[in-house]
């Protein structure tokens, strides 16, 4: 879809967007209400017990760690933490739900009334604040596998299989106020939230594996109107790009409907990343009656304010604070500081390298990380944790360059080899005999020989063809097998040619 088409629609209509973000608390060793391990995948129905299978007579016992993670999430997003809270049962029949009700929260979520400020766009962008209605805790469902249809979807399937390994995984649901106005704001919010969850260590937030799932409620209304339009709920976006594109698609689709004199139907729509379009799933016009009622298998929670305070003390440095510190302490440009602080693993990598190399080399370390390393990860489609490059290697390569031991060009070769082999830069330099020569006397000896062997070029240079300096530098570097310090070689040659 063309960008200008979206811009044209947004000139006439205001989009009203709210997000529902489900995050599996993968930091929890066990499921929400039983002792089964939390892990992705595995042979179907191997990480199950009477509780998460909903066998007759089994009872849920709440996972305190999961509740603490949820409260931490609330504290990090400026929410009020409820001192009185409880679980409710949300009731509907579906084969992936073992009890045919989901233990969730209703009118007493653990966290409510928060907000998050986001920056949209780079330099010259703007800031906006998105309200957070609530964060509550619930149990995840199992996974259905539909067999015989297309792409594993239910349409056309001959039968379905259920895997309950995921059933009962602690699932945190954050609901925003409908404060978001553009697809880009939606993407920025989700990214920012992910960076906070990662900094807190709540989840691996893997959108492809589904440990972080973002649904968007999208409606549009004519600019200036105050009444909300009819919304659709868009699901199945498993990347930030998909979130952006699906919301953009939906805005334009709804505008086309309205422009054509039609009306938008309240429904759930499925984003098809391949076809780059949304399609209707089921009509929500007849709202589900979930028959919520207080979960009688657990007593209501009454939290001590001191317990909440003690959790607040556990809050780590969040991405915004980290970014500001990088700017203040290391003099990093804001853009670089923001990039490095957004991903928790990357920030840890950076700080470890700076710890070794010293704060005065933080900028060079940032350059390597955002340059060579980022390009490499991008090309491999890898995460920072997946590479053989570790923080001490970046610290060492920066030190080698800064101390003049190798040239910048050599450093790039060393980096490439380091990425392949995982060897330390010092060892690579030594093995390749790559040490840079900065000794003036040694360079003078080679330069003298080069000048003697090329009398014609020397004459031309002295006659004014100063561009030939590159020829002489190249020849000296060749003689020195690339190990001459380019700056010193340059200086020596000019002095000998012009002196």
């Amino acid at each position: 879809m063309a960008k200008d088409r979206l811009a044209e629609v947004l000139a006439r209509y205001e989009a009203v967007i709210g997000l529902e973000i489900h995050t599996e608390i993968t930091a929890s060793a066990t499921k929400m209400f039983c002792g089964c391990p939390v892990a992705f995948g595995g042979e179907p129905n191997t990480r199950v017990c009477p509780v998460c299978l909903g066998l007759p007579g089994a009872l849920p016992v709440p996972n305190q760690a999961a509740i603490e993670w949820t409260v931490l999430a609330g504290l990090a997003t400026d929410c009020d933490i409820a001192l009185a809270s409880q679980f409710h049962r949300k009731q509907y029949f579906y084969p992936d739900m073992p009890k045919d009700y989901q233990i969730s929260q209703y009118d007493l979520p653990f966290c409510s009334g928060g907000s998050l400020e986001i920056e949209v766009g780079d330099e010259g962008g703007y800031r906006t604040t998105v309200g957070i209605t609530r964060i509550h805790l619930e149990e995840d469902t199992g996974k259905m596998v539909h067999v015989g249809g297309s792409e594993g979807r239910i349409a056309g399937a001959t039968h379905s299989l259920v895997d309950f390994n995921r059933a009962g995984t602690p699932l945190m649901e954050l609901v925003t106020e409908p404060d978001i106005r553009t697809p880009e704001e939606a993407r920025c919010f989700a990214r920012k939230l992910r960076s906070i969850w990662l900094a807190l260590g709540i989840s691996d937030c893997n959108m492809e594996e589904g440990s972080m799932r973002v649904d968007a409620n999208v409606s549009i209304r004519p600019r200036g109107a105050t009444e909300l339009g009819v919304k659709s709920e868009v699901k199945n976006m498993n990347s930030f790009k998909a979130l952006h594109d699906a919301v953009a698609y939906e805005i334009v689709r709804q505008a086309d409907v309205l422009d054509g004199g039609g009306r938008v139907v309240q429904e759930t729509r499925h984003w098809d990343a391949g076809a780059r379009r949304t399609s209707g799933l089921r009509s929500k016009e007849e709202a589900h009656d979930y028959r919520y009622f207080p979960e009688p298998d657990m007593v209501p929670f009454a939290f001590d304010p001191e317990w909440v305070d003690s959790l607040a003390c556990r809050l780590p440095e969040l991405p915004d604070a980290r970014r500001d510190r990088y700017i203040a302490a290391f003099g990093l440009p804001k853009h670089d500081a923001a990039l490095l602080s957004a991903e928790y693993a990357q920030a840890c990598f950076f700080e470890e390298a700076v710890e070794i190399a010293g704060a005065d080399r933080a900028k060079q370390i940032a350059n390597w990380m955002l340059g060579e390393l980022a390009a490499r990860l991008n090309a491999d489609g890898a995460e920072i944790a997946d590479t053989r490059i570790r923080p001490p290697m970046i610290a060492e390569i920066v030190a080698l360059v800064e101390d003049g031991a190798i040239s910048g060009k050599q450093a790039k070769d060393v980096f490439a080899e380091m990425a392949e082999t995982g060897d330390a830069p010092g060892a690579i330099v030594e093995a390749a005999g790559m040490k840079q020569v900065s000794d003036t006397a040694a360079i003078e000896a080679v330069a003298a020989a080069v000048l003697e062997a090329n009398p014609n070029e020397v004459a031309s240079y002295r006659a004014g063809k100063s561009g030939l300096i590159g020829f002489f530098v190249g020849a000296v570097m060749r003689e020195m097998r690339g190990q001459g310090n380019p700056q010193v070689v340059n200086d020596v040659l000019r002095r000998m040619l012009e002196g």
Partner: protein
Amino acid sequence: MSGIDLSVFPARQIRDAIASGEFSAREAADAAYERIDALDSDVHAFLQLTPELAYAAADRIDALRAAGEDLPSLAGVPAGIKDNMNLVGTRTTCASRILGDYESVYDCTAVRRLLDAGALPIGKCNMDEFAFGSSTENSAYGPTRNPWDLDRVPGGSSGGSAAVVAAGMASISLGSDTGGSIRQPGALTGTVGLKPTYGRVSRYGIVAFGSSLDQIGPFGRTVEDVALTLEAIAGEDAMDATSSPEPVERYSEALGIGAKGLRVGVVRDMLAAEGCGEEIRAVVDQAAETFAALGAEVGSVDLPNAKHGLAAYYIIGPAEASSNLARFDGIRYGHRAAEATDVLDLYMRSRAEGFGPESIRRIMLGTYALSAGYYDAYYGQAQKARTRIIEDFRAAFERFDILLTPTTPEVAFRFGEKVDDPYTMYLNDYYTIPVNLAGNCAVSVPSGLCTTTGMPMGLQIIGDYFAESTLLRAAAAFEEATGFDSVPPLVKALGVAKGGE
């Protein structure tokens, strides 16, 4: 023939007789199965017999004894288990077709603790389907008959558990009580039945009916057997978040203290209830006199909101049940309809075929009560009534240690008498329901036989939260003063072979 009559041997004497070598645990199991052979084709108290489990348990006790080890508190004591409690090696059907072939894959905590105390699991006891009922007439596998009169119901829902003890087919049994399902059949069969304080006994492994009301509790022929059994099964359980960390007392050791100085309150306003017979009313007055004679301070008290108990219960109980029974959907276990066109059709057919009429009635009641637009008018109001009842009890227990009511408004009724009139059936639990709503403890103790019918009558003694010790002490004093003969004529006709007393 084992030559042992379980109708005259209390649990402690069985254990002591095994410890002293008078007879073996195997012989105790034999005694249970011989009595079952003689009577259960008429009584139909068991849905499943588990001799392999019982004799394996008996062999372990006999081996302990042979090795000179100390025997646990219920060593060799034959026990019945209501069929809504899981035990590996048994089917747990809840007397429903929908779980007709369901094999337990884990153990209910209370059952596990009972067996760890040395009891012998004789079999699984009949009940009203999913514990919905007061007569066992709602069992999908046919009703249990009252050993005192085979034409009459044994009460319910734990009618099977009550009947096995009354008939001497086991010494003790476990039942569950959501609105009176232990106390009411206890009263109707001349046995002692205790509903512990909510949270006193773990609910892990009992198929849930009303999660905020259900408690597992014991039946016995004597108050001491009930106290010993409660000691074995009570206590906190990491698998049940509503189980209490309150320490378990040695209930059996406080029984001899007597009733002197106890403050006993007769719940006066409840005696005027609809359908409460004259003779039943007299039970409470006679009991009050008995307690006064034993040195208790007897007074009167009203529970003005208890009359709302029945209405509140028939909202809260079905609401929770409609949710708890949702999982029986034909997907993972239990009955699955053979011919279904899609998943919705599968759900509807499986459930329609699997559930009996009373289960369907309660699921519909509960679903309706929780529906959008009705929640506040029904569930919300019922919770308010519940709070009022809790306050009534709190006020009463500021003045009294125990309260007295009849257990039931009438003695055991005849089969079919009430089955078409759910409301009068529900009235049977009028006295017992308020206790489940408040969550405190109560016991039904036999108080004599009705002069016109010859059927047992029960006195309900109600205690405060976690006051089982006081409750059982009062019950023991009453039992001793009353001298009730708990052996029904049907059993006496068999001829008592060998007693313990």
